[in-house]
């Protein structure tokens, strides 16, 4: 399986380690109202779709960047990859 690294091009998936659902980027605010329930969801609840899934991959034997990879879990087709840093900054409304 090849992962299209946004900076380095196609790279062997063996260079990467897998973390899981990309929603882990959206960590709840621990000081906000209802933080306990929000953290219970954040830590324990995951979607497990048969189909298109956004996941976090770490380029461990490479440039050590985190990627958000969009993958079809049924066919293993990789539909896209972007730097998790850009995704996180976009989520916060900052410039990527």
């Amino acid at each position: 399986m090849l992962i299209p690294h946004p900076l380095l091009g196609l790279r062997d998936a063996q260079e990467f380690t897998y973390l899981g659902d990309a929603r882990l980027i959206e960590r709840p605010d621990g000081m906000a109202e209802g933080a306990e329930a929000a953290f219970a969801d954040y830590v324990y609840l995951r979607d497990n779709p048969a189909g298109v899934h956004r996941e976090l991959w770490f380029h461990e034997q490479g440039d050590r960047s985190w990627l958000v990879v969009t993958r079809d879990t049924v066919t293993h087709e990789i539909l896209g990859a972007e730097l998790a840093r850009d995704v996180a900054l976009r989520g916060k409304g900052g410039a990527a």
Partner: protein
Amino acid sequence: MTDLTPITALGADKPAKQQFGPLRISENPAAALASLALRRGASRPMPMGLELPGPGKWAAGHGVAAFWTGPDQWMIEAENRAIEDFAADLTAHAAGCSITEQTDGWTVFEIVSESGDAPIRAMMEKLVNLDVAAFGPGSATRTGLHHMSVFLIRRSGDRLAIMTMRSTASELWHVLEETAKGLG
């Protein structure tokens, strides 16, 4: 003062050097290394006048060389300056950047071919899962090699440098030796 005897990464008193057919593989203990990372929002410096290369690239000039190691991060090499405090010198040339001494943390093996780029390409094809055709002169990247994490630098068509952490230097030398023998 304690009388210490310096040894190389392979435990010898002289750097390793061996010829395998058209390939000469040698340990390069003389290169000073330091990593350079930008702080958030900082602009890219030109240490010693060298323009830092983009992703997957290596550039040399002004007595130093640099390769990209990650977003806003580079490794800077300085030939024959391993016995100096190169990181301190680099800090003076890259104000506001985070500089970390890396000399001797990494062991560099230089592979030189006497018959053009074909033997270098053959070595790479045996060693790493990279697109060799796309890895031309001026390319540099980190990848896995026999479960070790290594940097590859294509210094020119007939030259390739492979560097690994000092603690795995003898394993890498063994792999290079066996692979080069197998090509002959």
